[in-house]
């Protein structure tokens, strides 16, 4: 190729050409990501920041309003504050049982006491490959109105039937149950991988020292799994704070009775694409971003320390 010609050029230009000639392939190979990121992510992010300080319906020119969007969101907009509360409560209802169950299932599968491990792994992982929309449709029929299969089980056990998706009290637990069912398997697989990287000698040594199952779990398994748990908590928080499809299908775009199922992402969707308040919704997106960043950092601080101990 042109390499020999390039080599005899004057030093200054030659070095740049040489540089290009030497490194062009890797830069070429990685460039699609950076181009795509700048066009479809970074530019929109900056645009959202700009729009957050404006009032804009998508047609007429944006009107500068300073911090008014943010102030309104955090002080007077009851729906936004409610959606934030809903999202956090729903998130906690999902996160804690989901990750706890996943740890327990992973430890059980990994314990060496079970046969048919592959079957259990496949079974627990099955829900996660199904779309949230399909899952929500299935659960619509599980919950039903006054009847439905879940209510049948409940009345057989001697309780009164519950209007799961209409009673404001049960909307969140019902949504959480669906999300837990949907995602336990995902975290189980991640924890299993973490467990399998713990050296078996540690357990043997503890066994010789007379440590029981429970103490081995507390003193060996959990501490060594701490990093993995930290990682999953952060990933899950980011996901839970943006939850959209499940409540959207279960209780409808407006969030159901008393807006108990209205999450931040649903409210953002409503403001942006139904009410066409694009500036206001952009400000909302940044409030969510801030919340996610803060919670992730808090986690990193709190759990990061326990992990290092």
């Amino acid at each position, binding site marked *: 190729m042109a390499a020999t010609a390039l080599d005899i050029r004057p030093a200054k230009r030659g070095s740049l050409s040489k540089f290009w000639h030497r490194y062009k392939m890797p830069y070429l190979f990685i460039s*699609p990501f950076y181009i795509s*990121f700048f066009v479809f992510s970074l530019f*929109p992010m900056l645009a959202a920041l700009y729009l957050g300080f404006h009032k804009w319906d998508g047609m007429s020119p944006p009107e500068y309003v300073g911090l008014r969007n943010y102030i309104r969101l955090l002080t007077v907009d009851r729906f936004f504050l409610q959606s934030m509360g809903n999202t956090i409560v729903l998130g906690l209802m999902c996160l804690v049982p989901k990750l706890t169950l996943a740890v327990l299932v992973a430890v059980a599968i990994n314990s060496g006491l079970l046969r048919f491990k592959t079957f259990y792994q496949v079974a627990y*992982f099955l829900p996660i490959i*199904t779309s949230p929309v399909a899952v929500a449709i299935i659960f*619509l*029929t599980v919950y039903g109105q006054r009847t439905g299969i879940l209510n049948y089980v409940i009345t057989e056990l001697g309780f009164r039937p519950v209007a799961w998706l209409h009673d404001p009290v049960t909307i969140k637990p019902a949504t959480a149950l669906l999300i837990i069912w949907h995602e336990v398997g995902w975290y189980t697989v991640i924890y299993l991988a973490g467990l399998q990287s713990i050296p078996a000698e540690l357990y043997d040594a503890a066994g010789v020292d007379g440590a029981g199952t429970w103490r081995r779990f507390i003193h060996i398994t959990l501490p060594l799994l701490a990093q993995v748990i930290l990682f999953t908590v952060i990933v899950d928080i980011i996901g839970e704070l943006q939850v959209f499809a499940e409540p959207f299908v279960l209780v409808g775009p407006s969030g159901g009775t008393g807006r108990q199922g209205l999450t931040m992402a649903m409210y953002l969707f409503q403001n942006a694409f139904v009410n066409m308040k694009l500036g206001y919704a952009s400000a909302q997106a940044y409030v969510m971003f801030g919340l996610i960043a803060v919670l992730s950092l808090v986690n990193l601080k709190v759990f990061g320390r326990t992990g290092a101990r």
Partner: protein
Amino acid sequence: MITSAVDHSGRAGQRGRVDVVTIVQKTTLYVFISFGALLALFPFYWMVVVATLPASEVFSFPPPILPGNLLIHNIRSLFQAIPYGRNYLNSLFLATSVTVLMLFFDSLAGFAFAKYEFPARETLFAFLLSTMMIPYTVTLIPWFIEMKYFGWINSYAALIVPSAVDAFGIFWMCQYIASAVPSELLDAARIDGCSEFRIYRQVVLNLASPALAALGILTFLGSWNSLVGPLIIIRDQAKFPLTVALNTLVALRLTDYGALMAGTVGAVVPILLVYLAGARRFIAGIAAGSIHGM
């Protein structure tokens, strides 16, 4: 892998006591884990049952536990309510396009990060990883406006082009290629006069096929299951992918759950079959990827 776990149950101590404890432990474990597995699987069975029932029987007391015989009838009502066949092909087209493009661009970039030395490599890689933390909601609105500006509303371009390359896949491929493709092999190919792209195409792609398969399945699932993007981009009912089409049925609050569920079965079952066919390797692949990601 899955089978390598060691028996940690009390090997030390008195035989008799340990045996009793082990049996109790084992029973508890089996009950717990089997009950959970049952709960994980039951909704799928229920889905199939509802798809075969008349709408009036779905919520009857006691609930029907065995399938009915109205599957064909329900499928017919489904096709009358929405252009289901069209929606199906749309989902297939979208998911396939995104998967093919993403596998190409992600593996190419992953290869570059894994096997080339170049200035600012670490910085660029760290930057790439940090982009994974950006919540989709922050970019959603201006992205939509951008798509409008490009004239891509109601067009599949908006759902394919921005999804053609992503940070997670590059990270994933980089991890795999770094450990599975020997650098000596690449040098040997270079001495033989292979161009860099040909090395990628003939050596790297072959050796990285397990990682490509897992990433491909994940990407396909992600696209097949996605709701928000198509919901705001696609306006035309005939252009809806399955998720949006099924959601319109729900939003209409039609009570024909048999038809709705027949549509859901259609959307879920092929995915289940593909998953079951490669489940073991797929889960092992996911686990490996997620742990390297720590």
